[in-house]
């Protein structure tokens, strides 16, 4: 528990970012602040409603066209006339308002992959996105959170947002991950441990040697799924890897914010990752997590590798390591979607795409794919999919009678070649 009035030197990273963004000397959990937003992001699916609400507010111009990023990813290329019309509407708005950063089809990819790799996220920033997985940007030490369309419209109109300062849960992770155990397995394990509501309204700070050892791709996976425990933000303190990654992508000045020494946290969890097995989240909830050894043998009809959770280069490499020289089992389709044009390009150059094609997988252009249940791999009644995405809710990927299991790209790849949920460590 927190004791009385605290000195300014004892704030954690979340509180320090919010204090900066709201112009306060210090803030504490529970306090409602009016904060200035550094960046705002929306995509093709949330954009149209944001625009309607923006018109309703009645402001003529957005607050700052250079701080708004629009990415098309949810239904690309559009699968219906209706979707094409909505995308046209967003495109027109981008033009009308002179929005500087617009990633149309073929120019970007999954918004949360693009935001990091194109240098739109810097440590210490406050970023809001009209998408729940905006929490991904905490991987670079930003306070980033998802909002609905009307909240986003208010941000476009005013450049500010009211926020309740969250309590912060700290996850101190130590121990070296075993071979073929990844960031995905770690975050699934954590969500299983605290539950789907375990961090509701709260911030999750991930720290410790295991987290520091992860690359930015793995860190993105961890922060991305913090929303599945209800978190307002998932965040990692910026280190030399963060600074290097950001400097390679933007020439803008960087002013990282880190927790003060002796910063306080509502609760600290200590986790030993050294004995962690590959994990699987069993439908229909993300917190129903078991080690793969307890789930093995369940037959699948589809595997899916991609998304804002696991569609980055390290993810495709992990899948390729298993798929190389092997074939996806007859009766199973494996859908692989690189997270962005950049990821796709690197994967081509490294020969990963060739490995996937020779294995009998179908590779689609960057976007959200079947994760959102709109196109490119939706499921029929009674079908089972193992997916590297983030949600296994009823009907998430198609028929309400289908089932989605969540796992790492390696576990998905191993399962696709065996035709049933398989421990990737069983494949040499």
């Amino acid at each position, binding site marked *: 528990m927190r004791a009385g009035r605290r000195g300014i030197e004892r704030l954690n990273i979340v509180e320090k970012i919010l204090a900066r963004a709201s112009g306060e000397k210090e803030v504490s959990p529970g306090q409602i602040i009016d904060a200035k937003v550094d960046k705002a992001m929306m995509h093709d699916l949330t954009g149209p409603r944001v625009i309607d609400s923006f018109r309703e507010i009645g402001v003529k111009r957005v607050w700052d066209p250079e701080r708004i990023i629009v990415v098309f990813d949810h239904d690309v290329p559009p699968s219906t006339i209706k979707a094409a019309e909505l995308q046209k509407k967003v495109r027109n708005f981008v033009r009308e308002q002179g929005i500087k950063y617009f990633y149309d089809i073929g120019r970007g990819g999954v918004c949360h992959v693009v935001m990091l790799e194109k240098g739109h996220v810097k440590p210490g920033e406050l970023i809001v996105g009209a998408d729940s997985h905006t929490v991904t940007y905490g991987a670079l030490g930003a306070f980033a959170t998802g*909002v609905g369309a009307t909240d986003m419209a*208010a941000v476009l109109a005013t450049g500010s947002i009211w926020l309740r300062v969250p309590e912060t849960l700290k996850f101190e992770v130590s121990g070296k991950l075993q071979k073929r155990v990844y960031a995905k397995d770690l975050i699934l394990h954590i969500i299983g441990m605290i539950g789907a509501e375990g961090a509701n309204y709260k911030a999750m700070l991930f720290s410790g040697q295991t987290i520091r050892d992860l690359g930015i791709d793995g860190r993105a996976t961890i922060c991305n799924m913090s929303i599945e425990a209800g978190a307002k933000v998932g965040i990692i303190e910026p280190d030399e890897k963060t600074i290097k990654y950001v400097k390679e992508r933007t020439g803008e000045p960087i002013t990282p914010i880190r927790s003060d020494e002796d910063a306080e946290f509502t609760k600290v969890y200590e986790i030993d990752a050294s004995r962690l097995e590959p994990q699987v989240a069993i439908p229909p909830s993300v917190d129903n997590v078991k080690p793969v050894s307890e789930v093995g043998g369940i037959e699948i009809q589809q595997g899916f590798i991609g998304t804002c959770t696991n569609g980055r280069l390290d993810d495709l490499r992990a899948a390729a390591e298993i798929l190389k020289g092997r074939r996806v089992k007859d009766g199973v389709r494996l859908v692989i979607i690189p997270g962005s044009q950049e990821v796709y390009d690197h994967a081509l150059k490294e020969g990963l795409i060739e490995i996937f094609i020779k294995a009998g997988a179908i590779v689609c252009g960057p976007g959200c794919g079947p994760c959102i249940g709109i196109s490119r791999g939706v499921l029929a009644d009674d079908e089972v999919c193992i997916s590297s995405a983030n949600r296994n809710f*009823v*009907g*998430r990927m198609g028929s309400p009678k289908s089932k989605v299991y969540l796992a790492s790209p390696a576990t998905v790849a191993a399962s696709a070649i065996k035709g049933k949920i398989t421990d990737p460590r069983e494949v040499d």
Partner: protein
Amino acid sequence: MRVEGKAVVYGDNIDTDVIIPGRYLVLQEPSELAKHAMEGVDPNFPQKAREGVIIVAGRNFGCGSSREEAPVALKHANTKCVIAESFARIFYRNAINIGLPILEASLRDKVSEGDLLSVDLVSGIIENKTRGIKIQAKPLPPLAIEIISAGGLTRYVRKKLGLE
């Protein structure tokens, strides 16, 4: 502000994908969205809600995506109020922003499907008229009441900017 309706009862972790599946998000019209409200768990919900209902649910109502279509679909299906033990944070904000009344209260064992409920949104007092009992919900925070009283977030921002 008082609302009344028959209770429709659901469990914990009602996510936004069951409230309004992703494939319907291209339907922008609230009345079209309303036809698919709660389809993932209760395809009959739009019929049940026709005369006006109050949803009673467990923990973490509205978890998952940021889609504002979730509260919009419920509101336009004629949901008068959602009472849950707790709400996922984005749904909570969205509901207030678009004017779907919500309250936090635990009604386990105090409300059954079909009970007639009457809710005072300001005081947070919930009356189960079928059973003749009253339950106090957690009052909404002052800012939420301010936004609701303004008629939603767009009107609230218009006022703040001096546009009305």
